[in-house]
């Protein structure tokens, strides 16, 4: 226990809150000409740990009944004490590393006091005086590559949920969420438009998911934003900022910002000054409304939490986390382009698909459910299975099969991609059969459809035989392969011969010089073979037969 908590951190936060980056030149926005907008964002992200921040309680999953994931500590039962969940620290450290934040070797926890029914202890444990990570940056993926500086990242407890029942005019409390681990990521006021704010939140979401630290899902409440905005004339000092609390979608955040910017401009145009306020956002009117003024701002009476003492994070621990954390999206992006010579557009599609994977608890790796599209793709490209001596699979072909065939058919079935739906070894086998002309591409697609529709233990190869999908071969192919075609199969040469004999009029037309009519005969063969023949091979055989006559 170190009790002299504040003296070491003092001075760190004495810099002005509004020391915005003035390096960027002002860019005129048609929506509000002659005004500069300055935006900062606080993001609260739930940490994807199986347990709460200071108790052994398992966190609630969708479908858990209210007040069933609660330990005495979460309910602030007298006599209980907190115990820090180190997994939460490790996951938050991943985020700090990904944001290039300065991880503090010593940080402390503080109590933030206010009375509210969803706060059973009457205080929230947070890191006010001495957060565990300070500084950092997130570069927005725009052409200008706008850097947004990170002020600090702190660990804190989530509150319970209060649900107002209008019928009974009662507030109901669900303690399931109480005490879950949150990280609060505070940006500097470096954004200049609602679009940049949206891009910041989306990029941060992607980063949180990529490092496995949070689901980052705004709809489900695992990521929430408070934004602050001010308006000023370019070149003049920043205006008074207002904070808009608890925005739970990027769309609402952008609407709230636009509404707030126009409100500020209206006030400033009428030569009044904007009062400093905390505001809410109405999802009905798409406007912000006043929650409280600066004078009503609560005094949270921050006090060091005497139970938890100092949180030490050693250089060795940081190094371990750095080495075991997942690859960051930027690195994956350039690696995929370089290693597999993929088109940037295809890489983006694969990364977007990968971003939808489930985030495992406590940063666990392995386990099929945590494998995303990138791992799936690389498994097929690299794992040669039985054909290890053969040349590696063509990454572009593999990617096409994943993006167009597998994901295409899944979305037609209203399903999303998961790595375990069709095991990567199966798709690999299927691709090999198509590439090796054992089945046609058309048959390959039908085979995939069959696998999705009729889940079974049979491998694609077994199914191809069972479903009579093996490609028909010509006499020459059969004799050069040295293996007999499956029993009952005619060879392709015989089928072509039969078609010619059934279509005398077309044969005459072709021989009279109407070359296009050949396609009709090809179509007949294809119909007869139900897609088991390669159209190009059929055309060659037919041409040889007809021209040779």
């Amino acid at each position: 226990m170190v009790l002299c908590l504040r003296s070491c951190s003092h001075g760190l936060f004495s810099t002005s809150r509004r020391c915005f980056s003035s390096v960027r030149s002002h860019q005129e926005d048609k929506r509000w000409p002659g005004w500069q907008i300055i935006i900062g964002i606080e993001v609260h992200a739930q940490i994807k740990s199986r347990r709460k921040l200071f108790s052994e309680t398992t966190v609630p999953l969708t479908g858990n009944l209210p007040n069933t994931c609660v330990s005495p500590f979460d309910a602030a039962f007298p006599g209980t004490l907190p115990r820090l969940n180190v997994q939460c620290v490790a996951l938050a450290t991943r985020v700090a590393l990904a944001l290039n934040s300065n991880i503090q070797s010593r940080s402390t926890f503080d109590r933030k006091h206010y009375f509210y029914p969803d706060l059973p202890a009457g205080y929230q444990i947070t890191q006010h005086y001495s957060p565990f990570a300070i500084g950092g940056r997130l570069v927005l993926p725009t052409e200008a590559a706008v850097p947004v500086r990170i002020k600090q990242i702190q660990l804190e407890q989530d509150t319970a949920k209060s649900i107002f029942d209008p019928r009974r005019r009662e507030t109901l409390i669900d303690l399931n969420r109480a005490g879950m681990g949150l990280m609060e990521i505070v940006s500097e006021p470096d954004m200049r438009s609602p679009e940049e704010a949206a891009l910041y939140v989306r990029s941060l979401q992607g980063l949180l998911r990529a490092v496995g630290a949070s689901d980052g899902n705004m709809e489900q409440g695992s990521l929430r934003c408070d934004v602050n905005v001010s308006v000023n004339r370019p070149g003049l000092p920043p205006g008074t900022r207002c904070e808009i609390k608890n925005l739970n979608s990027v769309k609402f955040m952008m609407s709230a910002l636009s509404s707030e910017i126009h409100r500020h401009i209206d006030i400033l145009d009428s030569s009044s000054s904007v009062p400093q306020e905390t505001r809410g956002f109405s999802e009905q009117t798409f406007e912000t409304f006043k929650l409280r003024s600066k004078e009503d701002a609560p005094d949270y009476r921050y006090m060091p939490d005497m139970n938890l003492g100092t949180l030490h994070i050693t250089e060795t621990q940081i190094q371990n986390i750095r080495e075991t954390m997942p690859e960051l999206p930027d690195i994956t992006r350039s690696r995929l382009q370089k290693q597999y010579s993929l088109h940037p557009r295809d890489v983006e599609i694969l990364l977007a698909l990968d971003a939808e994977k489930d985030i495992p608890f406590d940063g666990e790796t392995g386990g099929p459910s945590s494998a995303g599209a990138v791992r799936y793709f690389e498994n097929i490209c690299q794992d040669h299975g039985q054909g290890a001596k053969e040349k590696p699979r063509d990454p572009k072909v593999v990617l096409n099969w994943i993006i167009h065939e597998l994901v295409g058919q899944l979305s037609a079935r209203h399903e999303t991609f998961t790595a375990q739906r069709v095991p990567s070894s199966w798709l690999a086998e299927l691709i090999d059969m198509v590439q090796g002309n054992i089945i046609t591409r058309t048959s390959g697609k039908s085979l995939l459809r069959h696998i999705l529709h009729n889940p079974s233990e049979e491998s694609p190869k077994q199914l191809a035989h069972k479903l009579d999908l093996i490609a028909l071969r010509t006499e020459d192919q059969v004799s050069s392969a040295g293996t007999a075609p499956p029993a009952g199969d005619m060879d392709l040469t015989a089928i072509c011969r039969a078609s010619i004999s059934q279509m005398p009029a077309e044969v005459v037309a072709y021989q009279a010089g109407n070359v296009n009519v050949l396609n009709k005969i090809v179509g007949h063969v294809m119909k007869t073979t139900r897609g088991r023949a390669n159209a190009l091979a059929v055309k060659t055989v037919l041409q040889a037969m007809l021209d040779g006559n």
Partner: protein
Amino acid sequence: MCYAALGTDTGGSIRLPASYCGVTGFKPSYGLISRYGVVSFADSLDCVGVIAKTTKRVRTVAEVIMVPDARDPASASHALRSNASSHSPRLSAAHLNGLRVGVPAEYFPSELATSVITPTRRVLSALQSLGATIVSVSLPSTPYALSAYYVIACAEASSNLARYDGVEYGLNVTVQRTRSGDTATRSYAATRTQGFGAEVRKRILLGTYALRADAFDNYFQQALRVRQLVRDDFNKTFRSPDVRFMESPPAAAPDQPDVDIIVHPTAIQPAPLIEDNAKQGLDAYVQDVLTVPASLAGLPALSIRSESSVGDRRGWPIGVTIVGQWGSDDMILRVGEMVEMSLRS
């Protein structure tokens, strides 16, 4: 009535009653006995301790419960405990030769009743007859300890008692709904006004004030600084280090003799009379003046029974406290036992 009793001691709640009632009261080093299950008043000060007729009994109970507990984040590890005891002086079973005993001048304030001075002398002569050396020491921050203690304890209490708001815990006083919609706020106010007694309300208000943004630096922060001074005073006086803060030991004071234990009266007077109790104001707080420094520093303190032999309270029990360095609990219990034996014989 019983063999021994457990109690909690935040600023003297084991040692003072023990002194007044003529029994042994022991507040161990902070972090040696788990606080899990103890309703928190002031987390950084709260200690579980033992009251019994003799030190021998106290030790029998304390030895069982002084073990690490993962459920208390402030519980000291095995390693820290053994490190501390390795720095404690080895005692012989027969005598206390070589033990250095400090008597702090600041613990004999003007408020101190003469009836508590002779009992302290009795204990000191018992120590001397056992072979210990008595020296005078100075703990200069002592006069500020009481104010710092009240700021810290009340601030922590205001935080810890916030949960008794009528939602999950405490009374629930229902208030009339009004149009203004501040039903919850008014319900909190009514619940907490009615549910807490006058003294508790006073302390909560004091603590709430000390934590306000505009008062924090002058009150809470200042109190933490005084607390560090109190801790430094002890560390400069004890021969062994405080193993909790080995990284940053305070500068040694060359003119200060190093001691193993400090001895002082537990209270400034024998048990107050009921009729005196009614008219006291600030006096009730002043009673803690001698017990809070060990609480602020988290040090073990053992109050043993002595007796007043002078004045109108002749024969009344009076406690004399033995304080040791953090983690020297075993040593001070053994010293206490030997002194008790010597006083009885």
